[in-house]
């Protein structure tokens, strides 16, 4: 495992292009595009103000930089560096900007969710979509980029509009039986839309592409409801994480619940492997200190190393007591992610912030649990295989695979606090983002990288 040089970064804005060739990163008002393999700078763009949002177009030809403070969107072309485009939303303001799947339209949401403006790069046309709902996840495109589903609010009722992306025509418009729609999400096959209510009510509705209601699911009443929703890549399962600390898996045939994954604080089943991160202070062996001074001692001194230990059951995990008088209590399933082969599901319960639970979907049971020393910030599956990368805001990155678990120290002067990470689509490299810097972690291919940049550290 090799690590690249550390590069500057701001606002955690660092993205691989969809084709995997480039890596865009932002430093204040500058946008830097590098080759994803060599990390050589390909292009350097300068925006008018600090960049707050960056997004690649689906064909990897354009990059969108949103400057929300100014109400501006600047678009850059990778092929034609001299080409530029600037969209000014003026006094209407800007709170969100995104590409349409065809990569030729930009959807800007104005302040107060007054409307969504659809700007075309092909023609000078502008379309408006009124009454978008200000919610957690109000816009969703199908995987194939044909359709857009949009949550709307009119006359105190929730609606969903399905639009055809090619010409922004309204295909379907229907009201949803929700109190306060919180989010919508297409199934990966683009035929089923999941819509769920706000946390005050446990309710998830499933709509067909043609607007028919397929099913509704309600696990319980009178308690805080859904916190997170995730489709399996095969569209077979819908995982619904809720505030009661459980994940419920629905199937795609009857839309009934298959199973329920609880997240208990103690694990008793001896079949479950519990990896516990354990700190290990550098061993103070006299022989080692004497002569010759070893490389580890000469190199950057990592104050604490850590390793995984397989804890023997029963294991009790650290739990947080939620403050009942605060809004958004730290309970429930805050994050879920299916592995690309739909075989595993990784979850994080907010009341047990240091643990990641990995469930076996084929056997519908808990497979492993990872307990970190600090709260889990982010985890993401390798897009090619069942490999999960986890970061906890420390100077380490953790990898889990069915074969085992590994904790890797990120080398570098000072502390490199990994706040977020994102995989290259080949699964060969991993971008690790800290507050001010980022570096790449190469997992498989060492040649080329090593010659170009030199090995910054070798932790295997």
């Amino acid at each position, binding site marked *: 495992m090799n690590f690249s040089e550390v590069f500057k970064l701001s606002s955690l804005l660092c993205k691989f292009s969809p084709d995997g060739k480039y890596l865009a990163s932002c430093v204040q008002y500058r946008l830097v595009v590098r080759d994803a393999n060599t990390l050589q700078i390909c292009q350097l763009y300068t925006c008018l103000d600090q960049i707050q949002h960056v997004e690649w177009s689906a064909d990897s030809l354009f990059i969108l930089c949103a400057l929300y403070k100014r109400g501006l969107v600047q678009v850059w072309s990778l092929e034609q560096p001299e080409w530029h485009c600037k969209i000014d939303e003026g006094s209407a303001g800007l709170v969100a900007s995104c590409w349409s799947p065809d990569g030729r339209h930009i959807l800007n949401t104005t302040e107060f969710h007054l409307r969504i403006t659809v700007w075309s790069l*092909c023609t000078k046309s502008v379309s408006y979509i009124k009454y978008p709902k200000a919610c957690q996840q109000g816009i969703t495109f199908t995987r194939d980029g044909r359709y857009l589903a949009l949550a709307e609010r009119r006359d105190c009722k929730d609606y969903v509009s399905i639009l055809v992306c090619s010409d922004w025509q309204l295909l379907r418009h229907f009201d949803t039986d929700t109190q306060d729609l919180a989010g919508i999400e297409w199934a990966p096959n683009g035929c089923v839309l999941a819509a769920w209510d706000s946390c005050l009510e446990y309710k998830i509705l499933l709509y067909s592409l*043609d607007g028919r209601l397929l099913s509704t699911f309600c696990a319980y009443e009178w308690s805080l409801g859904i916190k997170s929703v995730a489709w399996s890549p095969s569209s077979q399962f819908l995982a619904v994480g809720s505030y009661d600390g459980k994940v419920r898996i629905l199937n795609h045939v009857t839309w009934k619940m298959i199973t329920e994954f609880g997240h208990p604080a103690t694990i008793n089943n001896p079949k479950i492997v519990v990896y516990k991160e354990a700190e290990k202070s550098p061993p103070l062996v006299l022989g080692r200190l004497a002569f010759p001074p070893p490389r580890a001692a000469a190199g950057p001194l990592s104050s604490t190393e850590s390793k995984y230990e397989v804890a023997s059951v029963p294991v009790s995990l650290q739990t947080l007591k939620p403050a009942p008088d605060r809004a958004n209590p730290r309970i429930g399933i805050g994050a879920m992610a299916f592995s690309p082969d739909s075989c595993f599901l990784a979850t994080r319960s907010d009341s047990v912030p240091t643990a990641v639970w990995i469930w076996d979907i084929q056997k519908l049971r808990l497979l492993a649990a990872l307990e970190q020393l600090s709260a889990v910030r982010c985890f993401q599956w390798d897009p090619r295989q069942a490999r999960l990368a986890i970061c906890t805001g420390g100077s380490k990155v953790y990898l889990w695979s069915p074969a085992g678990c590994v904790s890797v120290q990120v080398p570098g002067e000072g502390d490199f606090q990994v706040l977020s990470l994102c995989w290259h689509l080949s699964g060969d490299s991993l971008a690790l983002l800290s507050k001010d810097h980022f570096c790449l972690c190469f997992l498989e291919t060492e040649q080329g990288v090593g010659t170009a940049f030199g090995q910054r550290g070798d932790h295997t």
Partner: protein
Amino acid sequence: MGDWMTVTDPGLSSESKYISQYTSETKMSPSSLYSQQVLCSSIPLSKNVHSFFSAFCTEENIEQSISYLDQELTTFGFPSLYEESKGKETKRELNIVAVLNCMNELLVLQRKNLLAQENVETQNLKLGSDMDHLQNCYAKLKEQLETSRREMIGLQERDRQLQCKNRNLHQLLKNEKDEVQKLQNIIASRATQYNHDMKRKEREYNKLKERLHQLVMNKKDKKIAMEVLNYVGRADGKRGSWRTGKTEASFFLRNEDEMYKILLNDYEYRQKQILMENAELKKVLQQMKKEMISLLSPQKQKPRERADDSTGTVISDIEEDAGELSRESMWDLSCETVREQLTNSIRKQWRILKSHVEKLDNQVSKVHVEGFNDEDVISRQDHEQETEKLELEIQQCKEMIKTQQQLLQQLATACDDDTTSLLRDCYLLEEKERLKEEWSLFKEQKKNFEKERRSFTEAAIRLGLERKAFEEERASWLKQQFLNMTTFDHQNSENVKLLSAFSGSSDRDNPTVHSRPRQKKPHGAPSGSPVCMSKLTKSLPASPSTSDFCQTRSCVSEHSSISVLNTTPEESKPNQVGRECTNQKWSVASRPDSQEGGYSGRSSTYANSHVEKDDLP
């Protein structure tokens, strides 16, 4: 006080004494008065009271005391101490008899009283103790009563308190319920209020948004614009086209078409997947079915015998089904038609399998129960190991048997002669055994025969000797008779001789026989000796014939025994039974007169001759 009194005046003390005496005695008798007078006047103070009292009657007051006593006694119902006086003037005489009687009576009374007193005292004691006991009991019971009363009061108090508490709690509960109801009402009202407000706010917000939208959009904001260097082509290469009223409808239709196409594709994909899954499941089902049939068919003989008709019919159904369903074409039919059949057959098979498994389970459990009944529980593993071992052994034994059978067959085919001889030997051995037994039997019989023969020979020898003696006797007798014709005196002495000779041969064996002829001969001899003579002479040829017969018989027996000895077992076998029979007849015939019989027979013949002799005259 007494001390103090004695210290003071003796007169005073005497006075007090007097008073005390008076108080105790005043009502008892007038004599006491007198005595007091005496005491006061004459009797010195040194005399003690007791001695003074003992002197109730003095010389002076005899009369008075007698009269007093008389008075007292009469008042008590005793007869008067005085004799009946005729005249009043005459002085009454003291009747000593009456006095004595009275005294005696008094003494008796006294004794009685004493006894009664004693009884009363003991009763009193008893009663006193009873009383004490009862009092104790009473006290105890009283205490108990008190404590229980106290307890009861305490319990009542507690009960009261609890009831009070309960009432309070009820009240509290009621209050709480009311509170809850109130709160629920409040919540509901708040919720409605909140919803209402929310809606109002949202409407206001929407209005504001609308207004803002109008304001922002109508301002003709110069800023809202897009600066593009040059427009780029579409990703799909098409040119962007403006929507017009005409095209919109067609666009819409096209979009609908596309949407439905996508949906259709999805459904088709899913159907295909389901079909594939179905096919796989069918395959699995078929395989399972086949396996089930193959599993169940070897057992079908047993269940048919064992269980009732249902299983049998089911099995036959299965066989039919198997025949039907094994045809591949059936599987390609839509599920509708096959499903019922298939599910039914599977269900039946499953039922059979289940019952079979249950039966096995029962057996296992039975075995287990039996196993558990034993003291040491054999673990299942051990059991299985044991059964395996036993099975192995059985297998080995079977193999052994098989090989042995094979070897035997081989031998039979390879060397016939040997085997036959062997077989014969086998049979002969058996026979030998039997023959041995017979042999031993024969030996015993032979021994018997030998004994008999010996006895016979002895008898024959004796007979020979006797005959000789007889002949001699006869000769002598004839000679004597011959001589008798000449002199009769000689005859007697000769007769005695003959008799002695006769007895000499047989006296040790048969005394009766020995004595009889002695006694009878003298009788018959004088009476009818000539007749007897003639008779004897007549019978003489017969006697040797009997002895001859005996001899021949013994000879025959001798010969037969010898022949038995000489014959080899093989040869003797066929004749054996017959000879044995003759032997037995023989033995039966001979045994009653083995040694003595011979003589008795002879004696009988003699007796007969004697009888004849007796009858003759």
